[in-house]
C-alpha cells in the first residue's frame, strides 16, 4: 500500500459526487472537503518535502533513487538492523518526513513531536 494516493482520493470524491443523494450527505460533504484539502496540500507542499526527503535518504543510505525506492530501502534497513533508527541523523529524517506528511494530511492535528504542543 502506498495510499491512499491523491488519485484514489480524487476517485473517491468524484464517485461520491456522481452518486445518488443520501441522508448522510452532510457528513460526506465534510469528508470530501477534507479529501480535497489533502489533495491541494499534496500538490503544493509535498514536491519540496519529497525532494528534501530524497536527499536525506540518499545521504543515509549512500544510494540514489526515487522516493519510494529509497523509502523502501530505509524501512528494510531498519527492519534488518542495518540501520539504527536511533542514529540522530536517521531519527531526524524520520521526524522531518513525518511532520511534512502531517502538514499535508492533517495540518491541524495536535501532537507533542518537536515540543510543538507540550
Amino acid at each position, binding site marked *: 500500500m502506498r495510499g491512499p494516493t491523491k488519485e484514489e482520493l480524487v476517485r473517491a470524491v468524484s464517485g461520491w459526487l456522481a452518486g445518488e443523494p443520501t441522508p448522510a450527505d452532510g457528513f460526506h460533504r465534510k469528508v470530501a472537503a477534507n479529501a480535497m484539502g489533502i489533495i491541494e496540500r499534496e500538490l503544493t507542499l509535498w514536491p519540496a518535502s519529497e525532494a528534501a526527503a530524497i536527499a536525506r535518504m540518499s545521504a543515509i543510505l549512500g544510494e540514489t533513487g526515487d522516493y519510494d525506492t529509497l*523509502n523502501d530501502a530505509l*524501512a*528494510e534497513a531498519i527492519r534488518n538492523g542495518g540501520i539504527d533508527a536511533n542514529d540522530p541523523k536517521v*531519527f531526524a529524517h524520520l521526524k522531518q518526513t*513525518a511532520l511534512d506528511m*502531517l502538514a499535508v494530511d492533517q495540518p491541524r492535528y495536535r501532537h507533542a*513531536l518537536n515540543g510543538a504542543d507540550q
Partner: protein
Amino acid sequence: MAQRLEALAPLLAEGGRGIGGLKRLTGGASLETWAFDVESPDGLRALILRRRGDGEEAEVFETSLPLPIEARVLAAAQAAGAPVAELVRDCGPGDGLGEAYIVTRVAGETLGRRIAAGTAFAPAREVLGRQCGETLARIHAVSVEAMPDLEVQNAQDVIDRYADIYRKSSGPRPVMEAALKWMQANLPEAVTPRLVHGDFRNGNLMVEADTGLTAVLDWELAHLGDPAEDFGWLCVNSWRFGVTDKRVGGFADLADLLAGYKAVGGEAVSVERVRFWEVVGTFKWAVITMMMYQTFATGASASVERAVIGRRLSECEVDLLALMEGAN
C-alpha cells in the same frame, strides 16, 4: 424484532407490558445496538439491546467476543463495582433474538471531543481521571479464574499480531519499522495476566457533565493480559481530541489516573510501562487505519471516509516518534 422484545417485556421490567421507542443506534455492520423502552406500571424502563446481526461479517478488525461471553464479563465487572450498563438479560435461544443481550440504558455523553473540550464537561474533567483509575483497578481485580475462557494476550502476542497485519496490508514504512524495533527493545517483564477491558478510551466512556463516569461501554475486546495495556490505550493521542497536554483521554493527567488506581488497591504501574503500552496502542491504531483504508483499496467500500482514513497514518507516525523521542 419488536415482536420478540414485546414478548420479553414481562421479563425486562417488573410488570412490563409492552415496548416502545425501538430505534437502531450506531453500530458496526455485524454488531447491532438498539435502544428501546419497556412500559411498566412504574413508567418506562430505558434499555439497550446488543445483538449480532444476520448479515455477513462485513469487516472484523479485531476478534470480538461472542456476546454471551461479553455479557458474563460485563456482569463480573459490575459485581466488582465497575460502573457499567447493568446486565438485564443474557438472551437465550428461546428469546428468538439470536446472539444478544440486554442492558440498562445509561444517561450521559460518549462523544470524545465534547468530553475532552466541551465547556459543560469541565466539572466532569475534574474527577474523570481519578474515576477511570478507580474503575480500572476494579476491572483488573476481577478474579481471572471466574472468567470464561478469555484469551491471554501478552505484549509479545499483541505486537506480533499487529506487526503481521501491517506487513500484509502495507508497503514498508520506516517509522513503523522503527516502532517495532523500539517495542521489541522495550518489552516489559511479563506480569500475571489480569482481566483487561481492551478498548478503554475516551469514546467508550459514558460521562455525565456534572458527575463524570457513569458507565464503561464496549466490552467486546476484553481479554487477559497486562493491566497497563488499558492505561496505554487510554493515553493514545488520537483519543485526546486535540487536548494533547491532558495525556489521559484529553481530560486528565496520568497522575490522577494512577492515584485513583492506587486508591482502590490497584498494583503500582510504572510510567515506563504505560508508555510502552501507549506505543503499542498507537501502533495498533495505525494498523487499524490501514485496514480500514484497505476496504476502499480493495473495492469493498467506495466511501470517501474509508479512503481518507488511510491518511490518519501520518498522525500515528508523528505520535510514535514523539513517544520514542520522549523515552530516550
